[in-house]
């Protein structure tokens, strides 16, 4: 137990930049700057009354989910000594210590009949190998349980796997998982001078791609509601570019608001009840906020400069946005009620500039955890995805390429997805990076892809 805690304590430091409650071992890790992913063993889940192929597939998805985080290293099955694990029985800890697995996950997949319907049930237990004890889970009511079980329709077997991954991730890191989520994005095809851009949605691991628009008109910059199965995005359907709302359950879209001119760059508020967007009129872009229930909107900025890409803090009190009011695109923070605030650089103003590094900053997105703002930075002919404190301190660049653009956060605020054109003329691809910048991965899509945005955890 202690060893797992230590590694993940170090992880907490890397993720937040803040010192967790320290132990001696932890300090060693930090000063050496060495990050060791936690070794974890996940033998194929036992198939009980189902095709072993299904159990194997679920186990593989779980392994792939966890490995994708960069926080865990999966012990290869060829190294396993004990091959007769059983979810009901404690493992032979010595066999797992020898192959240096800190944690061992034992699972099963079975077929269950409920009201005449055949369902699939996935179960797991997790063992602390060095502590030689069962790692208990908290269930939804907060009670400690010996393992987790998930029940679903057989066709949703991938979701059972992602739920299991989320349970393991959450138990080991103390954070919510982000595997049972979806990503909405723009699927691109065709030559550069006649690109077709469609709204698309897929599971967070790239499975189950669906296209939501036909490609007859261009759509851009989708964002997921943090609380509902809704997407907001910008579309050229009807000629004038406007912000739309798409209801995934009903499969219906509608224009958002009754704006006279073009609207773009939408984002939901953290509680999902409002959408912030930009209206451009007569050459001046300003930020508005619309209540989704009343459909009343309010203008937040009145500056003659470009004000766009608004993102609200999780508590709803502040808005970070992109403005060129200082002569080049930079990030500014204002109070959501428009009242003056004390700026980090001194003085009071309606909006305070928070970026002062060399280069141009745009597309700020407030972390769901509230402590950081992700952005796109352009400097010296290169593009970067980075994060910065809400007071403008602690800027860190996580990625760099010919074009890295458009960050959005995983719902737990630990991973950032964005799109990349790796070199001049390269096709856009979806990528993700964790907050340490260490785990940089491509999300494979069937077509070229851009503008990824993450859903909340599915219910």
């Amino acid at each position, binding site marked *: 137990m202690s060893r797992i805690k230590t590694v993940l304590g170090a992880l907490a430091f890397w993720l937040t930049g803040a010192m967790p409650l320290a132990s001696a071992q932890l300090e060693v890790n930090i000063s050496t700057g060495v990050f060791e992913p936690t070794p974890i063993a996940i033998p194929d889940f036992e198939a009980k009354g189902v095709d072993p192929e299904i159990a194997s597939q679920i186990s593989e998805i779980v392994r792939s989910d966890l490995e994708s985080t960069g926080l865990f290293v999966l012990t290869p099955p060829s190294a396993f000594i004990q091959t007769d694990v059983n979810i009901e029985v404690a493992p032979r800890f010595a066999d797992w210590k020898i192959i240096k697995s800190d944690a061992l996950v034992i699972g099963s997949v079975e077929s269950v009949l409920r009201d005449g319907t055949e369902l699939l049930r996935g179960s797991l237990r997790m063992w602390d190998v060095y502590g030689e004890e069962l790692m208990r889970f908290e269930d939804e009511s907060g009670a400690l349980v010996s393992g987790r079980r998930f029940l679903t329709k057989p066709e949703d077997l991938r979701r059972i796997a992602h739920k299991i991954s989320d349970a393991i991730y959450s138990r080991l890191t103390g954070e919510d998982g982000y595997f049972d989520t979806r990503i909405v994005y723009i699927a691109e095809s065709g*030559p*550069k*001078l006649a*690109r077709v*851009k469609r709204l698309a949605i897929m599971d967070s691991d790239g499975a189950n791609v669906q296209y939501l628009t036909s490609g007859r008109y*261009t759509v*851009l*910059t989708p964002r997921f509601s943090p609380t509902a199965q809704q997407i907001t995005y*910008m579309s050229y359907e009807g*000629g*004038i*570019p406007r912000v739309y709302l798409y209801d995934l359950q009903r499969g219906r879209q509608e224009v958002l608001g009754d704006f006279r001119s*073009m609207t*773009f*760059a939408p984002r939901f508020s953290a509680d999902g009840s409002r959408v912030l967007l*930009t209206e*451009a009129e*007569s*050459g*001046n*872009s300003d930020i508005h906020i619309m209540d989704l229930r009343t459909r009343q909107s309010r203008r937040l900025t009145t500056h003659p400069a*470009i004000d*766009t*890409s608004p993102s609200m803090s999780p508590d709803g009190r502040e808005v970070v946005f*992109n403005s060129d009011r200082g002569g*080049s*695109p930079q990030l500014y923070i204002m109070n959501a009620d428009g009242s003056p605030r004390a700026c980090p650089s001194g003085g009071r103003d309606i909006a305070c500039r928070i970026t002062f590094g060399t280069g*141009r900053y*745009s*597309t700020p997105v407030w972390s769901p955890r509230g402590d950081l703002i992700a952005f*796109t930075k*352009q400097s010296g002919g290169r593009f970067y995805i980075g994060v910065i404190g809400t007071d403008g301190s602690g800027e860190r660049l996580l990625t760099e390429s*010919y*074009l890295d*653009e*458009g960050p959005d956060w995983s719902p737990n605020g630990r991973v950032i997805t964005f799109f990349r054109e790796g070199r*001049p*003329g390269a096709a856009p691809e979806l990528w993700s990076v964790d907050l340490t910048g260490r785990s940089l991965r491509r999300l494979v899509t069937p077509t070229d892809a851009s*503008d990824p945005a993450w859903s909340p955890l599915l219910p």
Partner: protein
Amino acid sequence: MRRLMMTSGSLALLFGVVACSTTPPPAPVVEEPEPVIVEPEPEPEPVIEVIEEPEPVVPAGPLAGSLEDFQVNVGERVFFDLDQYVLTEDARSVLQRQAAWLGSYADVKILVAGNCDERGTREYNLALGERRANVVKDYLVDLGVDPARIETVSYGKERPIAAGSDESAWALNRNGFTQIVSGAAS
């Protein structure tokens, strides 16, 4: 050419008639009349010149007031400097021609699109493109074009006209594009 020959023939006839009326009265004897065509006036040079005159009038360029006329003789696009929305001298002279042309063809309605190069984010470029489109519109209005004839749209960096990823392509992709939507001759 056929027209030329026919016209010469009728002229020859005319001269013939004139020649006849100036001949002395003939003897009453039935004789072969003096041939009318004796010594016809030579085809007069000036006549040929007159006949050739219509030829250069046949129009060689695009139909005046047409989309092609606008594209070829006026210019559809003005170009912007990096991250700029200020009109250059070149852009102003193109827009002056556009305004004059639009003054001649009052039924024409236009859509001005603002475009950006790929070296910026989508959202910022949508705002910048909108600003460029409106700078073009405002200048045309200053030059006397009725604002009711001008719509604007921003395509940000979504509609490049040059596929490259170098400065020359980016320069072409930073533009204001005046598109005729209705009212042109065809």
